């Protein structure tokens, strides 16, 4: 306990002087490394450049969100969920609000539902764009990053105009919405859809048929659908392995059952398929947005929710399809104003577990590609 070296499980502070003698080379990647997407630390055991195994060391960004929740009221905790997956804050908010609404047995009015879906899908596109940019950057293509950030900016502008914040939006309230959609919201969203469609083609033009991109991603980090299920991997990773499962279709929440969209699946479960699946997902999200903007009804945006929320005693597990996978909230209420326990089931955390399996036998460069393709956000992994 008193030895600071307990921090480093493989004792890297005193490198083995004879490491060159053995075939195994232990490399510490992170927590400060350009390609670990935050403060992920990966300890690699290498034979030359081949990965024999790896261990993830996480928790550098642990803020105790679940503990904080127990000391806040339901309303007060709402902004905190944005800080977990800060790339897809709207999705986090949607999951939390819906879970508490279920606990309270209220339902958001239809207009609120539609606006929620529009914002959540916009956020899904933003999250995928950020993923694409950084993933391509990891593999060495620097240009897509700037393209995706340019287009993601338009989404953030819509968020900013809607609720005043760009990243940690706190867009939804328990029971509906606080803000009515601003004037011209629908037009701007429509404009954005038309603006971003050719841009997605542009990304694909840069990468989809690029020989080097194909060589770097095809057959890299392969994981079968069966392994995905065993490891609890969800989201685009699961779908790229051929399992057609999306919570929006399987256990519809919000008003997703009103929309017509496809679930893209891959065949090989490799990095390239995951890339394709996410590209199609972006287009499908645009489809949902288009339908939602057309069908958005008039009406109230807030359900009747008591000022002081005291959900009846009980438990609820509610999950949504976040851009990264199944994001679940397990809430235990003891009848007071504060949740007795909130458990967040973070998709990134569970997906990251598959890293070891996906990287075995691959090369160091593939580890980077696989970390990128898992699309983890360390704020969510560590909470």
């Amino acid at each position, binding site marked *: 306990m008193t030895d600071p070296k307990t921090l480093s499980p493989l004792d890297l502070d005193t490198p083995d*002087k*004879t490491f*060159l*003698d053995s075939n195994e080379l232990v490399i510490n990647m992170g927590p400060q490394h350009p390609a670990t997407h935050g403060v992920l630390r990966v300890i690699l055991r290498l034979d030359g450049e081949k990965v024999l195994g790896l261990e993830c060391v996480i928790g550098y960004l642990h803020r105790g969100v679940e503990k904080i929740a127990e000391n806040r009221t339901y309303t007060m905790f709402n902004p905190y969920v944005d800080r977990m997956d800060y790339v897809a804050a709207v999705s986090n908010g949607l999951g939390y609000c819906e879970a508490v609404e279920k606990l309270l047995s209220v339902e958001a009015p239809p207009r609120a539902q539609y606006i929620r879906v529009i914002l959540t899908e916009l956020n899904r596109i933003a999250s995928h764009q950020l993923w694409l940019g950084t993933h391509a950057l990891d593999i060495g293509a620097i240009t897509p990053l700037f393209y995706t950030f340019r287009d993601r900016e338009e989404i953030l502008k819509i968020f900013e105009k809607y609720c005043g914040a760009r990243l940690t939006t706190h867009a939804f309230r328990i029971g509906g919405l606080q803000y009515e959609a601003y004037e011209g919201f629908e037009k701007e969203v429509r404009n954005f859809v038309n603006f971003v469609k050719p841009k997605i083609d542009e990304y694909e033009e840069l990468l989809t048929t690029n020989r080097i991109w194909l060589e770097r991603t095809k057959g890299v980090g392969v994981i079968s659908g069966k392994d995905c299920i065993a490891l609890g991997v969800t989201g685009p990773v699961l779908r790229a392995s051929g399992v057609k499962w999306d919570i929006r279709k399987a256990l519809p929440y919000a008003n997703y059952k009103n929309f017509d969209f496809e679930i893209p699946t891959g065949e090989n479960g490799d990095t390239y398929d995951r890339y394709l699946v996410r590209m199609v997902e972006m287009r499908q999200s645009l489809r949902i947005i288009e339908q939602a903007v057309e069908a958005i009804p008039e009406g109230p945006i807030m359900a009747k929710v008591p000022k002081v929320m005291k959900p009846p005693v009980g438990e609820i597990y509610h999950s949504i399809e976040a851009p990264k996978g199944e994001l679940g909230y397990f809430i235990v209420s003891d009848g007071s104003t504060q949740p007795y326990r909130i458990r967040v089931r973070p998709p990134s955390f569970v997906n990251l577990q598959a890293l070891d399996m996906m990287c075995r036998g691959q090369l160091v460069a593939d580890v980077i590609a696989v970390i990128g393709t898992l699309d983890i956000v360390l704020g969510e992994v560590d909470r």
Partner: protein
Amino acid sequence: MNPVTANPPVATPFFFYLLATVMIVGGILVITRKNAVHSAMALITTLLAQAALYLMLYAPFVAGVQIILYAGGIMVLFLFVIMLISIERAAKERQFNRQWLVGIAAATGLGGLLIAVYTTTTKGAVLFPQGNVSYVESQNTQAIAALLFDRMTGTYMFAFEIASLLLLVAIIGAVVMAKKRI
């Protein structure tokens, strides 16, 4: 036009002794350094100085080949191998066996023999004949090619090719040995 007269060498003795000193110092460092990488660096210095000496002898092609093959190719592989083995341990170990006395004796003997042969034979006959004038400067590369491959004057073709065959055998042997381990 004779290129030698058109472009006379500058300060030949000075450069010769400079390069010779560099070579000897480098050679001594190669065998005295305990760190293998330092030894390799010293060897590279020696080889480069040697290439410079070739240049002084109007043998630019040989100098170029010396740089490409030895300094640029073989020594890189040397360093490659040295880096993959543990240097710290090698540095701690005693160098070879304690036979430096025998070594010095052998070196002195060999050197003495060389000097003796040189002094005795040059008294009467010429040990090193004057170089063929046509081989210098502009035709150096072509002359070597002629010596090796020409139908009329090429006398070393067989030896040259057989040497490359030997290298091929070595490469195949290395591959076979490496494969067995895998």
